[in-house]
């Protein structure tokens, strides 16, 4: 076990593209955790999707050995966390495993809402925050201005220990290590107290079963012992504990302040919940802690959508894929759903829109499936005439109107940080989305903070994309759920050739139904290819048609070219065309492409 005085546990907070992964790569190199020749860019983001999108989806931990200027060798545990608002809870648990956080800010840009939110989370967890201004090699770098902004926006952060670095060139990155040792406090904890270890993430390994990422708060743990997860009550034998450096390496035991992994006889990811406390089971030589660590909560999905296989033959494959995916993503929920239009599929719950996109992309990519995802919905509270209340997250399942007394919709509080020149456009966007302004203030010379209360269903429909385009990328968004409010919502159905397509129904505020109906039918017309017959697309509220478009029939789809006897070539052309259609869903003989089901996300709201 390592002396806690020689341990530093920290996390890195940064906005996308501000250089978190690059800085982490440099720290790994400088501490010889990874030899330069084995270095692969963004070593911690090892999922293809993470590298491509430049985001962290899963938390990681890596242990570095650093020979500091004071002659001591320190154990630095870097806990890498997802940054996106969808994963705020995971972030909070990762931060709870640390005593400090490095706040990486792009010195050519400035503080973003996402960084702000995570920095507040760090401060709430009493972390020491160490500012690191990155990209100082660029001509447009303004470290002083950005530092001033950090001070005025975040206030609490002590900017005196900040370091200017270029993670790209490696300049000054060694100073970051020295500051970590100097200013981030060592972990506390009593090795002789009952065991309390925080689970800050977990993943499924085909050979080892569930691997838990843990931080020991009090007590000691070693293989052979029986442990208990305090929230779930599950008891398991510990087979192995160890650290990532960056490969898994076994330890004989772990004590206070140490960060690493635990492998035991745990088969299901749902047995290990992020934020849970591990303690010992009551045995002849161990006893459990009486209280769990603070901060645990059951994660609730906020965004819901149907996922269906394009080909009904793939239903079983999809079910298997979802089971496997859930092994590694316990916040993803699914249950079987039947749609008249789309057949058998699953109603799924996600932490947010990004999470939804990631799940669909992973299912398609890792399991080679063609999928239809329906428009995302939030969970409404519907009060009925028989004095009962039901939750509805699928507009197709809304009870008939006469049975409904009122519908309440979820609200969020959104914080937007932007430059003054984009405030006008963003205010307009928030107002259009039925937002109610809470705060509008300058934070720093060139930065404005907007706080709005917004209906969540307005935010899940392309709000983020709009925000980005209005602000040319210079706005960031963070939000949290605030509660429910009664709202005048109506169900809008979409009819294709006169037949309502249940998977296309949405719940929408009455004031927007006309423009949304128009926008949606126009957008559907753009994405539905011409067919062999005219296809009408109608938007309806109840029996009333409020908008209509028409996809005219194709006039020609023929090979009329001189290929002589090259029949194979002709067949290839036809096969290619046929493959394209396989990616579409046939509803009443109308081939509807994937995009049509998400057209609602592209409508100018």
């Amino acid at each position, binding site marked *: 076990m390592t002396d806690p005085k020689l341990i530093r546990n920290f996390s890195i907070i940064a906005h996308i593209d501000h250089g978190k992964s690059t800085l982490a790569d440099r720290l790994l190199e400088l501490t010889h955790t990874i030899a330069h020749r084995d270095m692969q860019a963004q070593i911690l983001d090892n999922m293809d999707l993470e590298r491509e999108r430049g985001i962290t989806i899963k938390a990681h931990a890596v242990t570095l050995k650093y020979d500091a200027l004071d002659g001591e060798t320190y154990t630095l545990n870097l806990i890498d966390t997802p940054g996106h608002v969808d994963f705020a809870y995971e972030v909070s648990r990762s931060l709870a495993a640390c005593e400090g956080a490095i706040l990486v800010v792009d010195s050519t840009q400035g503080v973003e809402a996402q960084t702000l939110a995570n920095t507040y989370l760090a401060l709430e967890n009493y972390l020491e925050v160490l500012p690191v201004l990155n990209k100082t090699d660029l001509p447009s770098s303004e470290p002083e201005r950005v530092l001033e902004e950090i001070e005025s926006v975040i206030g609490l952060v002590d900017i005196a220990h900040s370091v200017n670095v270029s993670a790209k060139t490696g300049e000054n990155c060694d100073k970051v290590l020295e500051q970590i040792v100097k200013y981030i406090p060592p972990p506390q904890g009593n090795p002789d107290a009952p065991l309390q270890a925080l689970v800050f993430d977990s993943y499924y390994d085909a050979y080892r079963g569930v691997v838990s990422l843990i931080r020991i708060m009090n007590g000691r743990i070693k293989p052979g012992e029986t442990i208990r997860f305090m929230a779930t009550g599950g008891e398991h034998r510990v087979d192995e504990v160890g650290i990532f450096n960056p490969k898994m390496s076994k330890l004989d035991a772990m004590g206070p302040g140490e960060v690493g992994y635990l492998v035991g006889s745990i088969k299901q990811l749902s047995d290990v919940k992020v934020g849970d406390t591990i303690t010992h089971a009551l045995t002849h030589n161990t006893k459990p802690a009486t209280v769990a660590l603070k901060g645990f909560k059951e994660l609730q999905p906020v965004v819901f959508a149907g996922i269906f296989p394009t080909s009904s033959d793939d239903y079983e494959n999809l079910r298997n894929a979802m089971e496997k995916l859930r092994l590694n993503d316990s916040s993803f929920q699914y249950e079987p759903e039947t749609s008249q239009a789309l057949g058998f599929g699953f109603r799924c719950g996600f932490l947010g829109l990004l999470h939804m996109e990631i799940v669909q992309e992973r299912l398609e990519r890792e399991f080679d499936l063609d999928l239809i995802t329906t428009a995302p919905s939030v969970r409404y509270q519907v009060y009925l005439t028989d004095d009962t209340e039901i939750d509805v997250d699928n507009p197709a399942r809304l009870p008939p109107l006469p049975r409904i007394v009122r519908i309440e919709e979820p609200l969020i509080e959104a914080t937007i940080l932007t430059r003054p020149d984009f405030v006008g456009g963003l205010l307009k966007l928030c107002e259009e989305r039925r937002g109610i302004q809470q705060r509008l203030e300058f934070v720093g010379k060139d930065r404005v903070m907007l706080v709005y209360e917004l209906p969540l269903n307005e935010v899940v429909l392309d709000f983020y994309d709009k925000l980005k385009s209005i602000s040319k990328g210079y706005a960031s968004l963070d939000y949290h759920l605030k509660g429910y409010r009664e709202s005048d919502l109506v169900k809008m159905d979409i009819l294709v050739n006169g037949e309502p397509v249940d998977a296309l129904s949405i719940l929408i505020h009455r004031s927007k139904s006309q423009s949304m109906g128009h926008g949606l039918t126009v957008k559907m017309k753009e994405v539905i290819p011409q067919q*062999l*017959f005219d296809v009408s697309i109608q938007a309806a509220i109840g029996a009333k048609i409020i908008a209509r478009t028409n996809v005219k029939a*194709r*006039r*020609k*789809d*023929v*090979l*009329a*070219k*001189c290929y*002589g*006897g*090259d*029949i*194979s*070539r002709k*067949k290839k*052309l*036809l*096969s290619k*065309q*046929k493959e394209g*259609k396989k990616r579409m869903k046939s509803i009443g*003989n109308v081939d509807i492409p994937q995009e049509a089901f998400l057209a609602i996300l592209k409508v100018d709201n």
Partner: protein
Amino acid sequence: MFKELEAQSEALREAARVEPLGLYLHIPFCVDRCAYCSFVSTREESLRPAVLERLRQDLQTWGDELGHPLVDTVYLGGGTPSVLTAGELTALTDEVKQAFDLSALLEATLEANPGTVDPAWLQVARGLGWDRISLGVQTLDDDLLRRLGRIHDARTGLEALQQARAAGFQRISADLMIGIPGQDLARVLDDARQLVAAGASHLSIYMLDLDKDCPLKAEVAAGRLVLPTEDAVAEAFEALQEALPSLGLPAYEISNYARPGQLSIHNTRYWERRPYLGLGPSSASHLGPWRWTESGDLHAWTKGTGARDIQELNPAEALAEIPLLGLRMLRGIDWEDLRARAAGLALLPLVEKWEQELEIFIQLGLLTRQGANLRFSRKGLLLSNPVLEIFV
């Protein structure tokens, strides 16, 4: 014969004995490359001796290997066969006659570019036994011809037809292209009328299709030319469907119109799945259960090192080709005959699956079923791909 099918030489010989073959020869030379062309062709004169020598060897080898079988149709395509000199054409024709038994010959077609023919050459060709000529007229609008990068003008196009007739060709086909940027409907109809009046007894109507890279595609991509809309092309095609029968040339295939008795026997064999041997770069063959395509890399083909694309069709694939190809003919196919064949191969469930999938197209009026006969309606011809996709 080549090594991939060496082991099958007996089966190939047998296939060539069962019924007469078609013979296709690809002449990969052109005076200039057309702006829309993606065929194998070169302007490099120096390659000619080697290419013609290679073709001669292939003719001899295949003739020997297959046991000098009967060939009842010959088709000399390209490229531009009419760039061959009278001497080269004579030599090539002699080589064909030596390699194969032409005693039951029904038709010998050569393709020609109106810009490369003259009366003397045409007379030589006719004298050698070529009895059908297919002229790549494309359009009779000089601006459009220039746009297409053709080397001839409208007057030359019509003259070529007259010269062919004067040389004794009774069977003259012309290619007419629709969908050219800037082409209008009245022009297309007038072209068709003029070509028929000038003696064309067969017309092939092709749609300009820029599916592969070519200069014209680049022009369109750059916004300098605008392709007609799908509707406009469909209208032109439908107008021709209407006009050509009244000019005496009813359609017999999706793209082909002919006076009665004047249809292309060679091309019809493609749709009827009768055997043919293709020699020359990029040429396609169908013999027994095999289909193969020669390398389109001219140099590699000449050296004999090009890769061939060879497929052996299984019974289900072969069966599917019957409707896939046969439905292109306006007379359609005998569905009961198809069922009977399928039953013999234990493939009836496959045919029943097709029947289910065809139902919607019959309902939509794209296909007509009368007794055993299944064929495209006029509307269906233009929308044939979705139907034919069932069979690939």
